[in-house]
C-alpha cells in the first residue's frame, strides 16, 4: 500500500510535467487550427533565453521570468505568426506540418548555435532545499509549485476560452474565419494573440520543467512528443481531459517502474507514451467527421507512359555518366540522395496523391533494410529483395487497418506513434548484435554499378507511380484526397483504397530501404528513427510533395548539394536551401516542382504566342484564362457531419 501511494505521488509529478506541455499544444491547435510541431522548440528556446537573462546576465530570476514570459515569448510568438504561420491559413495539412517542422529545426539550430550544447548549464534554483514528505516520498516545494501551476494554467485557459470574448473569438476564427471577420472581430489580431499566448505557455512549461531534468536543447524540444498523448486524450480540444490524460500517462510510467518485471520494463517503458497516444487515437471517437480542408493547386496531369519511360532511361544514363565522373567520396554522397528519393516516391503516392499524412516512411524503409539484411544473406539474393518489399507492405497494410478511421492530423500522429514505438520495440533490438546490420547488395556490387542499379530502381518506381496516377487507382486516390465523405456517399471503397495506398507506399519505402542498406552496407537503429521520417517529409514538401518531379528534384538535390557544399566551402548549403524552402511553402505550397512547372507553362505560353501571332493568342488566352480561373485556386468548403 505504501509503495502504491509513493508511486502515485511520483506519477502525479510526472503527469504535471506532461500536462504543462500538452495544454500549450492544445491551446495553439484550438486557436490556430495548426498542429504545432515546434511547440516544444519554442518553449526550449525561451527556457534558454531565460537562462541567458537570469544566469547569464545576472538579472534576478523573478524579473527575468516576467521579461521572458510577458515580453520576449509573446514577441517570438508574434514573429512566428507573421512570418511563418499567416501564409498557412487554408493550406493543406502536409504544408502546415512541413512548415512547423522547419520551424522546429530552425529553433533547435538557433539554440545550438547560440548556446553551445557541450557546455553544461543550470537554471537558478527556486525554493531550493525545501520539501515535504507525502507517502514517504520527499516532494520538493518546487515540484509542488509545478503541480499547482499546471492545474492553474489549465483552469485559466479553460476560463479564457469558454468565458471571455477574446478566447471565444480565437476559437471562432479557426472554425470560420470569414464569418468571424464579418461579426466585427479581427482574425489577424486574434491569431496574433493566440500565437503570443501559445509561446508564453510553451515558455512557462519549459522553464518550469527544465530544473527537473537535463537542461538540454534537444531534450526540452522532444519532451512535447510525450505530451502528444495527453493532448490527443483531450481530443486537441478539451483541457480538463488533456490534464487527465497527462496524469494517466504519468501514473502509468511510474507504476510500470514500480510493478513491471525488469525484463518487461525495458520493452514497455519506452513505448508507454506512444501506446497511450495510439490507443487514444484509435479508441476515442473523433469529435466530428470532417471532409478534407484543402487549398487545391492546379491539378497537373501525369506524364504519359512513353515520355516517362524516355525520361527514366535518360535519368539512368545520366547516372551512369555521373558515376564515371565522380570521386569515390562524392559518388557515395550522390547515391545516398538517390536511395532516399525512392522512399520519397512512396510519400508522393501516399501523401501527395492520396492525402494520407504518414510520418513513418523511414520506419518502413528500415523494415526493408532489415528484411534484405536478414533474408538476402551475404549474396543479396532476390528473395531478400522480395522480403524487403513484402514485409513492410504487410506492416503498412496492418497499420492502415488499425488507423482506418483516422484522418488529417490524427492520422499523422498515429503514424508518428507507430514510428516512435518501432524505435524501441524493433530497431533497437533487431538490427544485429551491437545495433548494426550488414545489408548486402542485390545484383551489382561495385559502387558505380550499384549507383546505376539504384537509379534504375528509382526510375522504374517513378514510372510506376506516374502510371498509378494515370490509372483508376490514381483517380480513386485523388478522389479520396478531395473528399472522403463524397467518396463514401458515392459508394467508393475508401477503406480498400486507403489500405492499398498504405500497402503500396510501404512496399516502395521498403524497397528504398533495401537499396539504402545496400548503399551504406551497414545500417543501425539511428538510420530509421522517427525524426528521419519527418525530415524526409520536410525535404520532399520543399521540392513538391504532389508530383514525381518533386521527389526527383529532392533526390537530386540531396545527391548533389553536399558535394557542392564540400567543394564550395559554403557551410551547410544543403540545409540552407531546405530551410529557405520550408519558409516559402506557405506562399508556394507546391514547392520547387510547382514553381518549375508553372514556369514551364509560362514559357510554353510565350512560345505559343510567338507561333500563333497576337490575335489568335488573345482569343486563346481569354479561353484559357477562363479555365485557369476555374482551376487555379479552388477552395473546398469544409463539410462537417456529425453531432
Amino acid at each position, binding site marked *: 500500500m505504501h509503495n502504491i501511494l509513493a*508511486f502515485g505521488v*511520483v*506519477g502525479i*509529478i*510526472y503527469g504535471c510535467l506532461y500536462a504543462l506541455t500538452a495544454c500549450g499544444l492544445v491551446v495553439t491547435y484550438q486557436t490556430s487550427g495548426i498542429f504545432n510541431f515546434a511547440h516544444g522548440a519554442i518553449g526550449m528556446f525561451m527556457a534558454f533565453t531565460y537562462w541567458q537573462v537570469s544566469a547569464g546576465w545576472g538579472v534576478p530570476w523573478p524579473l527575468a521570468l516576467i521579461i521572458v514570459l510577458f515580453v520576449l515569448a509573446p514577441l517570438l510568438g508574434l514573429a512566428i505568426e507573421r*512570418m511563418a504561420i499567416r501564409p498557412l491559413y487554408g493550406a493543406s495539412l502536409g504544408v502546415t506540418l512541413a512548415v512547423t517542422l522547419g520551424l522546429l*529545426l*530552425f529553433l533547435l*539550430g538557433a539554440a*545550438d*548555435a547560440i548556446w*553551445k*550544447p*557541450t*557546455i*553544461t548549464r*543550470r537554471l537558478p534554483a527556486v525554493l531550493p532545499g525545501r520539501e515535504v514528505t507525502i507517502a514517504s*516520498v520527499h516532494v*520538493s516545494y518546487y515540484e509542488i509549485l509545478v503541480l499547482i501551476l499546471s492545474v492553474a494554467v489549465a483552469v485559466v485557459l479553460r476560463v479564457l476560452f469558454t468565458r471571455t470574448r477574446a478566447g471565444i473569438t480565437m476559437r471562432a476564427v479557426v472554425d470560420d474565419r470569414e464569418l468571424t471577420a464579418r461579426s466585427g472581430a479581427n482574425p489577424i489580431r486574434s491569431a496574433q494573440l493566440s500565437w503570443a499566448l501559445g509561446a508564453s505557455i510553451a515558455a512557462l512549461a519549459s522553464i518550469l520543467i527544465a530544473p*527537473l*531534468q*537535463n537542461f*538540454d*536543447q*534537444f*531534450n526540452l524540444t522532444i519532451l512535447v512528443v510525450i505530451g502528444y498523448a495527453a493532448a490527443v486524450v483531450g481530443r486537441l480540444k478539451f483541457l480538463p481531459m488533456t490534464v487527465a490524460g497527462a496524469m494517466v500517462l504519468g501514473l502509468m510510467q*511510474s507504476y510500470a*517502474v*514500480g510493478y513491471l518485471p525488469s525484463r518487461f*520494463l*525495458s520493452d514497455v*517503458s*519506452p513505448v508507454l507514451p506512444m501506446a497511450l497516444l495510439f490507443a487514444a487515437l484509435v479508441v476515442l471517437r473523433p469529435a466530428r467527421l470532417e471532409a478534407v480542408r484543402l487549398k487545391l493547386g492546379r491539378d497537373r496531369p501525369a506524364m504519359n507512359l512513353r515520355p516517362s519511360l524516355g525520361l527514366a532511361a535518360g535519368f539512368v544514363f545520366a547516372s551512369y555518366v555521373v558515376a564515371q565522373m565522380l570521386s569515390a*567520396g562524392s*559518388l*557515395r*554522397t550522390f547515391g*545516398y540522395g538517390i536511395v532516399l528519393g525512392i522512399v520519397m516516391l512512396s510519400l508522393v503516392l501516399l501523401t501527395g496523391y492520396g492525402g494520407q499524412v504518414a510520418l513513418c516512411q523511414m520506419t518502413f524503409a528500415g523494415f526493408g533494410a532489415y528484411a534484405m539484411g536478414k533474408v538476402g544473406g551475404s549474396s543479396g539474393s532476390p528473395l531478400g529483395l522480395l522480403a524487403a518489399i513484402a514485409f513492410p507492405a504487410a506492416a503498412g497494410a496492418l497499420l492502415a487497418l488499425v488507423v482506418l478511421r483516422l484522418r488529417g492530423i490524427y492520422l499523422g500522429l498515429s503514424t508518428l506513434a507507430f514510428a516512435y514505438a518501432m*524505435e*524501441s520495440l524493433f530497431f*533497437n533490438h533487431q*538490427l544485429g*548484435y*551491437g*545495433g548494426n546490420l550488414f545489408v548486402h547488395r542485390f545484383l551489382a556490387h561495385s559502387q558505380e554499378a550499384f549507383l546505376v542499379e539504384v537509379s534504375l530502381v528509382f526510375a522504374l518506381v517513378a514510372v510506376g507511380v506516374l502510371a498509378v496516377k494515370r490509372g483508376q487507382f490514381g483517380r480513386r486516390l485523388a478522389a479520396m484526397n478531395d473528399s472522403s465523405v463524397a467518396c463514401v456517399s458515392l459508394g467508393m471503397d475508401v477503406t480498400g483504397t486507403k489500405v492499398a495506398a498504405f500497402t503500396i507506399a510501404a512496399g516502395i519505402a521498403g524497397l528504398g530501404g533495401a537499396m539504402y542498406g545496400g548503399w*551504406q*552496407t551497414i*545500417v*543501425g*537503429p539511428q538510420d530509421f*528513427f522517427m525524426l528521419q521520417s519527418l*525530415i524526409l517529409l520536410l525535404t520532399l514538401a520543399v521540392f513538391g510533395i504532389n508530383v514525381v518531379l518533386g521527389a526527383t528534384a529532392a533526390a537530386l538535390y540531396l545527391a548533389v548539394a*553536399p558535394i557542392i557544399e*564540400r567543394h564550395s566551402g559554403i*557551410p551547410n548549403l544543403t*540545409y*540552407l536551401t531546405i*530551410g*529557405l524552402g520550408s*519558409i516559402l511553402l506557405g506562399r508556394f505550397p507546391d514547392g520547387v516542382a510547382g514553381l518549375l512547372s508553372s514556369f514551364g507553362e509560362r514559357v510554353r505560353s510565350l512560345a505559343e504566342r510567338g507561333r500563333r501571332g497576337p490575335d489568335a493568342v488573345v482569343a486563346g488566352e481569354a479561353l484559357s484564362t477562363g479555365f485557369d480561373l476555374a482551376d487555379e485556386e479552388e477552395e473546398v468548403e469544409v463539410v462537417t457531419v456529425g453531432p
Partner: protein
Amino acid sequence: MIACAILLVATLPACGLRANKQAVRAATEAAVGRGTGGGVGAGTGGGTGAGTESGLGGTSSATGASSAGAGTSGAGAGSTSGGSGVGSAAPAGGNGGATDIGVTADSITVGNISDLGGPVPGLFAGGPNGTQSYFNYINSQGGIYGRKLKLRTADDQLQCNQNQAAYENMVGSVMGFVGSWSLYDNCGALVLGKHPDAFNVSQALTADAEKLPNTYNLAPYGEGAQSGPFVYWKGKFPSTITKVGTLVGNVPASVNAWNYQQQMMETLGYKVIYRNDFPPAQTNFTADVIQMKSKGVQFAIGTSINAPDWAIFVSEAAQQDFHPQVMTAGSAMYAAGWIEQAGGAKNTEGHWFFTTTAMFLGEDAGTVPEVALYAKWLKQAYPNFKSDLFSAASWADAALFVEALKKAGPKVTRKAVLAALGQIRAFNDNGMVPMQDVAAKQPGHCYLLLQARAGKFVKVDDPPVGFRCDGIFRPYQR
C-alpha cells in the same frame, strides 16, 4: 521573411537530426565507459601474474597475461614507453622528400574524421582539438625529421554515409588518420578495410573499426569488462554486492556495454536486483530511486548511462534520502562541471568513479608533466574549449603516432609507420595513460579509482604515481 531566412541559413545546419540526441550521448558514454568497464583500458585475460608496471620504463607484464593481484603502475616518465614528443630535425642527407601519400619534404598530412556537427554539435570536438594541440607542440619543436605535422579535419555529422564519404575523400590524399572519434567508425571501417596501408591511430568505438589490422590505439575495444574496481569494492563492501541496482540507457551500445559488465560482475558474486533500461526521452528517475530504495539496493552503478542523466539520478537519490553504501559511475562522470550538475558536494560526497587516463582536468599536473603540457597546448590552441576525455585520449593517440613516426625513420612511408606501430610493446605517453602493449591490441587492465570529496575528484587507494593494475579483463561469453 528575408531576415528569417538569413537566421535560418545560419542556424539550420546543425539540424541534421539523424539521431536521437540522448541516444547519441548514451551510446557515446557507453563506448567511453567500455574503457572503464570493458574495452578501453580494461585488463587482458588469461594467465596469472603480478599486475605491475615498472615505474622506470620497463615493459608491461600485462602482455598476454592477466593481472590477478593488486598492482601498481609507474608513470614511465622519460622511458622507452614515453611519448615525450621532442621534435627531430631532418638528417644530413635529407628526409627523402615526398616518400608517400600525404608526405612532402616539409610536412606530413593526416586526416581526422569525427562527429563534430549534426544533432549534437561539438560532440567529439575533443578529437581534432587534442590531436591538433599535440601537433602544435611537436611543430614548435621543429617537427619530425624536418617535417611539420598537419591535420585535415572532416565532420561526418553523425551520419554513416558522411563518415564513409569522408574516408573515401581523404584516403587518397592523407598519410593516415589520427585522433578520430566517431560513433559511425564502423561505416568508415568499410572504406579503411579496402586501404590496409592507411594507418588509423584513433580510438575505435565499434568492433568493426577496432578489428582492422591498420587500426592502433591506446585503448583497444574489447567485448568484455575489466574486473579491477569491482574486486576492490567487493573486498571493501562485501555485503553490498548482492544488492546491485542500475540504470541503462536503452540504446544498443549502452545495453551491450552493460551486459558485458553485468556478466563480469556476476562471476565475482555480484547480483543485480534492479535494472531499468530507460528510454532516451526519460528525464526523471524518482520512481527508479523509490524502487531501488524499496528493494534494498546498496550498490548503485551508472556505467551505461550518460553523465547528465546520472547527475539527475544522483540529485533525485539525494532528495529521496537514498544513500546506498556504494554509488559509482564510470569515466564519463569525470568531467568539468559534473559534480555541480549533480547538485554539488552534498549530493556526491563519497561517490566512486574509475577512469583510465591520468586526471587530465589538472589534478595530476604536478605529478604527471604530460598533463600540464597537454593543458597548456590545448588552452593555447582552443582557449574556449573545455578539456574532456576525448581531447585527452586524442592527445595520447597523437603522441603514439609521433612515436611511430620517429621509429619509422626519415624516409617515412605508410607501411613503415604501420610496421613501427606493430613493434611498440610499451607506451604510456609519459603517464597520461596506463602502459599499453600497442602491438598486442589487447584491452588494458589499469585504471584509477576516484572519489568525490568536498566537491572535487580525488584519488583513493591509488599509487602516488601511475595506475592500479589489478583485476582481469573478462571477455563476454555469449
